[in-house]
């Protein structure tokens, strides 16, 4: 393997891991509230991508400024996350006390609905809005020319989100309330926390993160029907290997999966798509609760 390919694979992997991390983090957040894996999370990713692309086409045409484009991407993601997150949360609230399997299937039903809605709104033609990539230009790293968007912006955004969330959860009142509610809803309510409001907030934060992943992916991938389905399975793999509810774990696992995938692209392309699942299977073989989970005592 030449040095150039090594660097390319590293950079690709980091940028990909950044996206994966955002989506998986959203999934973990939502899991914290409803205690089920949200299958409709893939739709959040897809809608985030489409929403941001549409906003860019509508408002961002002809603009030269990268800041404006980034703002449009983020605004699109936040809007999509709040709207879809609220819809999903209201839906799941109707099924609060049901069997978790049934709740999981409700999100599956929602996923099916969203999938067709997306097809109705945006059609089946690929969408591709790459203005922001061109605006950010390229830079050279050790002899390899790379797009700034993927080199700096996406991993930077993922890291920024990571540190921001860490700070938010550990150092603000609301963040601590979120931790309390996710940890034990009943006790948190007894302590006077408005669990309903906090749960809603957590859910929407998770939804926005999922949509943000899609929005940041939109300039470098073409948006076609089915991207949601692929992404959801991948982010499941990240969350399950990291352990549910693990933020730092999700970051490390996303990096692991992102890097190994991009090395596969250059070295053994047949295995590219299989790689995340192989890693997940291997991780769960060694640590059944995920890499970073502390094993809990069994309840009798």
């Amino acid at each position, binding site marked *: 393997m030449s040095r150039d390919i090594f660097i390319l694979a590293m950079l690709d992997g980091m940028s990909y891991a950044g996206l994966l991390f955002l989506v998986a983090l959203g999934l973990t957040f939502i899991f914290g509230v409803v205690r089920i894996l949200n299958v409709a999370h893939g739709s959040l990713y897809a809608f985030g991508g489409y929403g941001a692309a549409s906003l860019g086409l509508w408002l961002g045409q002809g603009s030269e400024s990268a800041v404006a484009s980034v703002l449009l991407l983020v605004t699109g993601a936040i809007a999509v996350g709040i709207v879809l997150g609220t819809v999903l949360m209201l839906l799941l609230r109707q099924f609060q006390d049901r069997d978790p399997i049934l709740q999981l299937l409700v999100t599956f039903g929602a996923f099916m609905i969203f999938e*067709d809605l997306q097809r109705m709104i945006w059609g089946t033609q690929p969408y591709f809005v790459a203005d922001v990539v061109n605006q950010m230009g390229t830079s050279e790293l050790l002899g390899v020319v790379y797009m700034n968007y993927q080199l700096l912006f996406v991993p930077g955004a993922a890291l920024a989100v990571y540190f921001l969330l860490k700070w938010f959860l550990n150092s603000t009142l609301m963040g601590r309330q979120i931790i309390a509610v996710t940890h034990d809803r009943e006790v948190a309510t007894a302590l006077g926390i408005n669990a309903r409001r906090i749960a809603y907030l957590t859910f929407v934060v998770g939804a926005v993160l999922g949509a943000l992943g899609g929005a940041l992916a939109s300039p470098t991938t073409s948006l076609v029907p089915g991207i949601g389905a692929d992404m959801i399975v991948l982010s499941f793999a990240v969350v399950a290997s990291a352990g549910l509810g693990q933020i730092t774990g999700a970051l490390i696992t996303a990096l692991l999966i992102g890097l190994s995938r991009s090395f596969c692209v250059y070295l053994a392309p047949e295995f590219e798509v299989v790689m995340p699942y192989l890693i997940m299977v291997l991780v769960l073989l060694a640590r059944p609760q995920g890499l970073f989970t502390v094993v809990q005592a069994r309840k009798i």
Partner: protein
Amino acid sequence: MRSLLLNTAAVVVIIGLAMAFPWLKLPLILSLCYGLAALGIVVLLKAGQISFGHAMYACISGYVVAFVGHRFPGMDGVLLIALGTLASVVAGMLIGAFVVRYREIFFGMLNLAISMVLFTVLGKFYAVTGGTDGLRINRPTLLGFELTRDPFEIALLVLVVAISLAAIWGVQRYFLSSSGQALAAIKTNETRLEYLGVSAKKVLWKGYVLSASLCGLSGSLFGLSQGLVTPEMGYWLRSGEFVFIAILGGAGHAVGAFVGAILYEFLKMYAAALVSGSWQLVLGAILIVIIYFLPKGITGLMNRRKRLIGGAA
């Protein structure tokens, strides 16, 4: 006696419908195939586990049928079905030994992951598997008879109906057996089950192999009736459809899976005809409504009636 009557009635209705409306034959075969697979999911639901990867067994069996059919062109259809199912039983034994250590989300995700590996491998290795185009299955002889398309479909329908009835009977018997009761106990309280000296893993493993073999059986029949296997057969959305059908029918009784499957197939057909291109939307909405009003599925409704009648007497 009563169940015998019901069975005969079901057979007469299904075969009669297929005779009266020949276009119904294939949808009926396909929906019964889906029913067999959903029955496999019902077995797991009994243990409170859910798998988003069981379509891989249908896929494994379908591909084995295709491979063997190509390698030995004269082989009989029934033997092909048996071989295909056997492949799934073996795969289920191996994969099962690994996944029964996990519960709930991890169980579901592992099945999903393994099925995605299979799906990808089938799609990538074009030379062996025909890639995403899949493999054609030539129409084999059935019990030594060489049949043209129409009689072949009728024979297949009769075969599928017979297999389905046998499967309903067998799975119901299994649920009533001590092994089946222990399986249900995994859902209610696994720790207590272990305290009774029963190995929950072993119990779940048996259930898992049963469910894998039912999905495999469904896949062999599905492949033969379609004359084609594609990697799509093993995609996770297909597994999701199986789960959908199992929930629609309800886990209360084995027959639910088939009722659910027939309903599902026709809902899909009508939804596709009514609002072309957005049948998923209709089905998704139906799924949510069903879960809201009928969390125990259609058989739950039947059981409730039975209980009401029993209460009145």
